[in-house]
């Protein structure tokens, strides 16, 4: 029998519907793959095998009755940031020790409504703060990809590192992820997978542990463009429980995948050509443009003049919102509690022990920029710069650009415990240089594998779209996926 874990989500779903195999067989295959490989990859922080088998049996019953949903019987991994009723939900933080929500996030509820099966909860950077998955309380996730010349462990990117690693290593058919500054797209690029951050407001944030509420969006990481479209379809939709959820119809994303790019205008922003950009990234970008042109798109040089200010503005806005959102972790309502002589002592000791270093650093930055006397100089100024960043994109779209092509990351995956990054927090932040603008402007962005570096490691390109035009991104990403025709199976060592 074929290895069911190697099928695309689409092929798996279709095979299930055609009764070529059962949902229980598919789930068992994935559970076995997790049991065999997770010790080495550390992608899952909780495996819900019994629950998965029960869900799979229910899927088989629905398939038998002809009542299959759009993701019926498809085994998925869920980022630890999504509240899952009665199941480990700790944002990979010590401070949420033992937290098992009494409720289900809207995004995951949508997936279960459509018949998907939960395999477990996926590792991530603590509270989604990080670009290497090394800030997790549960330890780093390992990238299934390795350079051709050595066996060095590489990071899968972050913060959705567990999601990306699990998808690339066939430990789930697809995974939920979240993206505040690049946390879906950067790990997708580092692992040869496809990740889309939809337009802000497309997916409900209800029941997703909040990091920076004006930037956070959920989205999928999957092995193909079509798989990511199928997953996003299910995850999306208006939700009255999220006041920023937008009440617009969700198009048939999968139907847009093969639409092509004929007649589209693709923008190439001059400001993304950074000083010292590696030649292979430059080449990849040019190649991507050639592929789109060959399929009938027009390429247009554009300018997004405030690009370089997106990352510094982000490091004011995101920590400010985080310091406010994370105020709820106080040792009283849930999770870790460290006793103190009075209530202030209890708060301070609990938060000192419960939060990791990166989270504390960001909460402190956020507290500082919001404090009396600094609010206007930092926070208000950053929000003004954000208006300018959004305006840059609006100008480009108004001038006839349908989508924008950029590199997804400045490099391929780097090593675990990279010394350069460890000594300077800003170096790690630069990973998000191409992705963070998209969150600041609330736009959709997709990362798609487009090539490999000199070590055989995957490299991704990013497409940025107009608000609520994810369809164009799927169509253009599919052209890149098809033209690149990469072998995206990492050599198995785990």
């Amino acid at each position, binding site marked *: 029998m074929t290895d069911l874990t190697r099928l695309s989500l689409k092929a798996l779903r279709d095979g299930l519907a055609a009764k070529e195999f059962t949902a229980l067989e598919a789930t068992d295959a994935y559970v076995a793959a997790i049991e065999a490989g997770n010790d080495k990859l550390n992608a899952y922080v909780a495996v819900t095998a019994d629950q998965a088998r029960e869900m799979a049996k229910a899927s088989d019953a629905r398939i038998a009755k002809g009542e299959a949903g759009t993701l019926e019987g498809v085994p998925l991994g869920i980022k630890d940031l999504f509240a899952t009723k009665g199941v480990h939900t700790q944002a990979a933080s010590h401070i949420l020790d033992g937290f098992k929500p009494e409720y289900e996030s809207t995004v995951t509820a949508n997936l279960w409504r459509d018949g998907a099966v939960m395999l477990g909860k996926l590792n991530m950077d603590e509270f989604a703060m990080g670009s290497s998955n090394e800030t997790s309380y549960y330890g780093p996730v390992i990238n299934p990809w390795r350079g051709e010349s050595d066996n060095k462990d590489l990071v899968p990117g972050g913060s959705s590192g567990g999601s990306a690693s699990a998808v690339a290593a066939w430990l789930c058919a697809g995974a939920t992820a979240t993206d505040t500054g690049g946390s879906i797209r950067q790990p997708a690029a580092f692992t040869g997978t496809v990740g889309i951050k939809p337009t802000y407001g497309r997916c409900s944030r209800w029941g997703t542990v909040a990091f920076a509420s004006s930037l956070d969006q959920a989205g999928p990481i999957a092995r193909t463009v079509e798989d990511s479209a199928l997953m996003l379809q299910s995850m999306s939709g208006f939700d009255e429980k999220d006041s920023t959820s937008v009440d617009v119809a969700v198009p048939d994303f999968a139907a847009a995948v093969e639409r092509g790019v004929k007649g589209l205008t693709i923008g190439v922003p001059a400001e993304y050509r950074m000083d010292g950009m590696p030649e292979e990234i430059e080449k990849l970008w040019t190649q991507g443009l050639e592929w789109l042109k060959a399929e009938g798109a027009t390429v247009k040089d554009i300018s997004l003049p405030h690009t370089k200010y997106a990352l510094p503005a982000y490091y004011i806005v995101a920590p400010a919102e985080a310091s406010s959102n994370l105020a709820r972790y106080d040792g009283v*309502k849930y999770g870790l509690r460290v006793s103190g*002589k009075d209530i202030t002592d209890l708060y301070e000791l609990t938060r000192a022990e419960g939060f990791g270093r990166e989270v504390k650093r960001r909460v402190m930055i956020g507290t500082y920029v919001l404090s009396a006397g600094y609010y206007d100089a930092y926070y208000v100024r950053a*929000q003004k*710069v954000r208006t300018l960043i959004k305006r840059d994109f609006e100008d480009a779209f108004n001038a006839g650009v349908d989508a924008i092509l950029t590199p997804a990351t400045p490099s391929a995956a780097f090593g675990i415990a990279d010394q350069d990054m460890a000594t300077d927090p800003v170096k790690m932040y630069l990973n998000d240089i191409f992705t963070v603008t998209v969150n600041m402007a609330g736009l959709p962005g997709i990362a798609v594998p487009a090539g490999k570096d000199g070590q055989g490691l995957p490299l991704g390109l990013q497409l940025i779209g107009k608000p609520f035009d994810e369809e164009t991104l799927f169509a253009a990403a599919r052209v890149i996926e098809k033209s690149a025709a990469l072998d995206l199976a990492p050599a198995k060592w785990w």
Partner: protein
Amino acid sequence: MSVDADTVRRIGRLARIRITEDEVASYEGELNAILGFVEQLDEVNVEGVEPMTSVTPMVLRRREDKVTDGGYADRIVANAPISEDNFFMVPKVVE
């Protein structure tokens, strides 16, 4: 702008995170690295620019002011480290 050791201690108190004396110097360095990085925003002319309040052009929805949920205090305190009779327990606050 940059922070000194006293400011680090003050931010720690505001953020309700206990900072030990041997951590102060390293936080000071890290916070200043980040503040140095964001300083480049000072070059941007933001004269007459409205600060962003909503990334999507939308008005916050309103709904009728009525109770639509609740009535399960036991579930609210279910994850509390210490609770009693559906109350969260904390050290004595008022003498």
